[in-house]
């Protein structure tokens, strides 16, 4: 049993986008706060207080989660992928390129979460049909695009990734 005293901190270790971090955190610290405020990875957004919007979506041990509804202490030992981890050596990830080319964003607020949900979808299903794409982003709200171009972008990215581009 590991335990904290009142107001005390607990040591955790997380690997974010391949880099290992050790921190002493307050138990009430949300994963999204750890990412944004402590690790300064502000690509992960906060769009609501109610676990609805999905702007905070990151991938924890291969599963998409809403990082506003997970404690940092629950992520102890986990491998986390955030939107900052998508691009490699200055090259955009195929999903990012497809969102750009297909106008899959307007204000961009929902985009990091959309990208991470799409990433989780394509990891399990590299060739989704349009209905499966819609289901893949069912937990992400967009107030600008009407979703149409987001779906087109994910479809295009899936095709590009299947061709190894």
């Amino acid at each position, binding site marked *: *049993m*590991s*335990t*904290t*005293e*009142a*107001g*005390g901190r*607990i040591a955790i270790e997380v690997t974010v986008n391949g880099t290992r971090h050790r921190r002493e955190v*307050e*138990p*009430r610290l*949300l994963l999204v*706060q750890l990412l944004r405020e402590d690790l300064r990875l502000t690509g992960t957004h*906060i769009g609501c*207080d*109610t*676990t*609805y*919007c*999905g702007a905070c*979506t990151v991938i*924890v041990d291969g*599963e*998409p*989660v*809403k990082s*506003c*509804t*997970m*404690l940092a*202490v*629950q992520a102890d030992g986990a491998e986390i992928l955030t939107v900052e981890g998508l691009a490699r050596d200055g090259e955009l990830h195929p999903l990012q390129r497809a969102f750009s080319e297909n106008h899959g964003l307007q204000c961009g607020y929902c985009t990091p979460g959309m990208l991470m*949900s799409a990433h*989780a*979808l394509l990891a399990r299903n590299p060739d989704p049909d349009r209905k499966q794409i819609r*289901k*893949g982003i*069912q*937990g*992400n*709200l967009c107030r600008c695009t009407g979703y149409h171009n987001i779906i087109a972008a994910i479809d295009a990215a899936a095709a590009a990734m299947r061709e190894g581009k």
Partner: protein
Amino acid sequence: MYPAPFRYHRAATVEEAIARLVEIGEGARALAGGQTLLVWLKMRFDEPTDLVDIGRLPGLRDIEQEAGRVRIGALATHARIARAPLARQIPIVGDCASGIADNQVRSRGTIGGSLAAGDPSCDWPVLLTTLDAEVHCRGPSGTRTLPADGFVQDLYATRLEHGELVTGVSFALPGKGSAGAYVGFKRCAPAFPTSSVGVQLTLNGDDCTEARIALGSAGLTTIRAKAAEAELRGRTLGAGVIAKAAAAAAAAAEPVADQRGSPAFKRSLIDALVKRGVEVARRRARGETVEVSHEYY
């Protein structure tokens, strides 16, 4: 949006978790996936002094079959169940698991937490009541098994005692001629259902020998629609019989007015969902593959 401070304990064993919950008393809560509890803490609906994290307890996430029974560990997530072979083998289980919330919530939320939350809008208590399942519990005074039917007693109240944990659920594999469907309606994936209905029928052709129907988001607890079951049991399914059962289910519901709709709207929804559930169960009993789940726009 931030929870008030609390102490955090990470239990290594079920015994340790129970002992700590009992030792701390009133202010302690178990934390599983956090998809209900953390939402409450962020909104400050609840301000526990201590959280006992049971999320990493070993041996509680397995999905097994033995001697004609299915057993699911309390920490099995909605996503894990939705992806398990069980979800295709017993389609009503897949309907329920894959219809809960959205991908992200399903990654974390657990079947045990869904029961223990005592939330009439949670789907697992409804599905498990439909399947006449048992809930396996372990607490300070040992282990016991409770029926899923009646497990949720009132709004946010279950039969669990303080310090008692759900360790798993089990139910009999549906027998020959037995098929079901779990259908619901909600406004969008991350919303709780406006109404949901579980239907399990045993059919011989169109003759219904056994029926179980349970309703979710239809009152302050899970509601078993016994009068609706009686309309089907021993009858030959036809439009008239099904309509009577649907009307009986709508009458058994005790919906409250909220932002999801008026009681009258919810009753008409339940009427329609029972008809759809019976129709899908009937087609599945004939061997058809039918995909259903929560509908939303």
